[in-house]
């Protein structure tokens, strides 16, 4: 693995009034890596991700995305990242092709590049026949896979995925992760939040957040070894328990 940080976070703090959502986060994400961003609901992972995407401004801290300063070069960053939100997967009243053309257009791809890229991605998904089908008429799993393809349509350096597999069956999740690996292999760094612990096993490295802080960050195998357990699920439970103990003390 090349050790070039494409996301560099130093002492990130985000406060909403007196509530501290992100409490002094420091971490790096390396090029071509699949980085899992884990934590219970309300741990602050979505807040941190929104800041990295430019949807929210940090209270303080140094942040670089693809070498660019989040404070000063937010607009330039936007062109180099892809984003797949948890809530939204494509416009349902538009066809597969129309959705792809829309986002290709928004990201400034020329019509020629766009056409070959769409053809390539649809081929990968085996969805060439569904090119002119409305998104509403496709099963949810296909919609999610397409949404991912749209998020990497413009060859971003980094793609941010916010709980991309929520509500999808295990088989489709599996296929979804194959797409993620393919993208990572092509050099796209993947930053993914999830609360499926089996998915955490697929990541190159994971960070686990609790109450606004990063409490663990390493390769899944190393974490399992450190806590002396057999699965990421157990790692997560161990961490949650020790946090609870710390709280009660």
């Amino acid at each position, binding site marked *: 693995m090349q050790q070039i940080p494409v996301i560099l976070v130093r002492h990130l703090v985000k406060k909403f009034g007196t509530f501290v959502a992100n409490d002094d986060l420091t971490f790096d994400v390396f090029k071509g890596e699949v980085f899992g961003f884990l934590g219970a609901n309300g741990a602050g992972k979505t807040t941190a991700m929104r800041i990295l*995407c*430019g*949807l*929210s*401004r940090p209270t303080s801290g140094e942040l670089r995305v693809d070498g660019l300063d989040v404070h000063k070069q937010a*607009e330039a960053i*936007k*062109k180099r*990242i892809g*984003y*797949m*939100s*948890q*809530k*939204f997967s494509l*416009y349902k*009243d*538009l066809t597969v092709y*129309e959705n792809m*053309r*829309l*986002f*290709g*257009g*928004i*990201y*400034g791809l020329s019509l020629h590049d766009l056409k070959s890229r769409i053809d390539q991605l649809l081929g990968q998904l085996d969805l060439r026949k569904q090119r002119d089908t409305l998104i509403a008429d496709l099963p949810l799993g296909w919609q999610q896979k397409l949404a991912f393809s749209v998020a990497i349509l413009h060859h971003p350096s980094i793609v*941010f995925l916010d709980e991309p597999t929520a509500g999808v069956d295990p088989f489709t999740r599996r296929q979804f992760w194959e797409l993620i690996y393919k993208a990572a292999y092509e050099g796209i760094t993947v930053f993914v939040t999830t609360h499926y612990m089996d998915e955490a096993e697929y990541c190159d490295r994971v960070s686990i957040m609790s109450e606004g802080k990063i409490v663990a960050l390493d390769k899944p195998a190393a974490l399992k070894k450190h806590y002396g357990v057999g699965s990421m699920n157990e790692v997560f439970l161990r961490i949650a328990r020790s946090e609870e103990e710390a709280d009660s003390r």
Partner: protein
Amino acid sequence: MKCFCESQGVRKKQIVDSIQTFGAKTLHRLLAFIHKEFLHIIRDPRTLVILFGIPAAQILIFGYVISMDIREVQIAVVDLSRDTISRQLIHKFDASNYFRVSHMLNSVNEVEKILKSGSVKEVLVFESGFGTRFMREGEAMMGLIVDTSEPNTGRLVASYSEALIADFNRELAMAGRLKIVPAVRMLYNPALQNEYMFVPGLMTLILMLICALMTSITITREKEFGSMEVLLVSPLRPMQIILGKVAPYLLLAFGDVLLILAMANFVFGLPVKGSLMLLLLESVLYIGLALSLGILISTVSKTMQQAMFISLIGLMLPSILLSGFIFPLENMPLFYQIISLILPPRWFIIIVKNIMLKGTGFRFVWKETLVLIVMTAIFISISAKKFKIRLE
């Protein structure tokens, strides 16, 4: 030195190139986005119905309701003459399908009271000596006092009355050259100011409905579905997103203006008396104003229901009631008159009425135009501020 100049030239060319490609790329992005917005509109038949079906139906309904015939309108009579001629004419009114004589008054002093009570729409007045004068001089005056507080009905009542009298004259003329001259007096709204008010009024309300309601809904829809986030992460700037959402509606609302004016002209024979160009320009200004109101509503509402509620109850209802479209502003309590001042439709109605019905030029509507421009500027700056705050 030469080298330096060259490199500077190259540099300049590079900058120009980058500006050009930037502009072209931005436009490319925006067009892709606007195209998508059109697809949304075309895919949803309900949107098209709201955009074109409702305006057309409204114009037809209002137009036909207003130009309907009158039937059995109650009238009163003051007959101080009490002769054969006056009695014959009164009988003719009563026998027609249009009128029914419901009150016989004893004096002219009662006229005001009975008209104000609303129980009759018209009073026929025969002075004492009407019959004798008629026989002696071959011509006599009679009075028609018409309540025109409902201008269209009032106008119809007056013209039907005049037609009946003309008919009566013809019957009498067989016997000799005799003539009754009706003196028509219209009360409460003598200039018939609201005549054909329905076209300017409807145009004002329909544009407000389409622009404010539809844009506020379409923008909140992106928020509700979560697509707004994806757009905000993309290279599109917030202002471009808003512009892209609003541009199709600007075009469609303009189409509505043309549709309404065409229907007024070809279906109801109501042409634009003044400059069509001026009217269209004012319409674009008003559409812009309504769109910026829609944007403002979308910045304060989180869901489509909320946006719809604010647009319909908070905006449409006061616009219908306080714009002067249905209820004359002059008759309202001062409080409501003051509230009406901040409602854009109130001003646009005056502009359309002036250009369309009276045929006046810009000289007579510049004040109202200025008010609309100032309002637009205020709404745009507030929504720009709100939109930024939301991003924090």
